């Protein structure tokens, strides 16, 4: 399938994610976090937080809702059978805490082709209800060329 670069620069409607206490705990257990800031409300409060604190990599959860429409956008045209997540960067601002509402906007930063390989770079910008940027993500994917 030919690689289309038409979607470069495309920006998607923001999506909002409401951060919940049990979701933070579920995520923290799944990745093996043992810091009580992520698990114990009383401990988190004693450290000056309103509620349990999301581990930094919890950004994949609140970005997930925004990422779907990009990955499945026919204009982007990703062939899932040949998709590789090749690289990832996150930059973090203030910590996300249970009760926050995080709004994420995705942009197609770049699409390029080298032979039959396609390189897709997406950017996520996530802000909390106070307007602070809590996370900026750069998502790099490779779609391998087909054999047929």
């Amino acid at each position, binding site marked *: 399938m030919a690689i289309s670069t038409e979607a470069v620069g495309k920006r998607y409607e923001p999506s909002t994610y409401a951060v919940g206490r049990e979701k933070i705990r579920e995520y923290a257990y*799944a990745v093996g976090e043992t810091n009580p800031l992520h698990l114990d409300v009383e401990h988190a409060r004693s450290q000056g937080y309103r509620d349990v604190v*999301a581990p*930094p*990599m919890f950004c994949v*959860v609140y970005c997930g809702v925004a990422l779907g429409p990009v990955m499945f956008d026919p204009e982007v045209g990703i062939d899932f059978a040949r998709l590789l997540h090749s690289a*990832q960067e996150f930059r973090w601002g203030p910590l996300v805490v249970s009760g926050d509402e995080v709004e994420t906007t995705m942009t197609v930063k770049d699409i390029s082709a080298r032979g039959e390989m396609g390189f897709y770079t997406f950017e996520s910008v996530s802000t909390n209800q106070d307007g602070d940027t809590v996370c900026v993500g750069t998502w790099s994917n490779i779609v391998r060329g087909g054999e047929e």
Partner: protein
Amino acid sequence: MKAGDEIPTVTVTPDRYLTVRYAGASGDFNPIHVDDDFARQVGLPGRILHGLWTMAQVARAQTEAAGGPHALKRLSVTFRGMGVPESEITVTGSVAKVEDGIATVHAVAEQEGRAIIRNAEAELQVE
């Protein structure tokens, strides 16, 4: 933290059903991570780990070294090969430099002697 310091090693062995729990926790239900038959059909040895789960282990090594989640300001990684359940993963790293209260750490995640995350670079806020 000073240049040349090694950060404490994180070792973790994802159990047989880890990818299922992580799929639920993260929302990434790509069948290559949860369905052995599907994974084999697309040429994989069986279900494989989510790259972002392994990246979370690299992140955990940083926040544990730096004294909490607040310290991690940036993390970039390159995914290499693939991780599999039921085999130990080791995350190691060392401080490349400290400038203006930010330590730059270079790290790697290895399984069975192969790097599954390499070129990891973290920026940690240090006192």
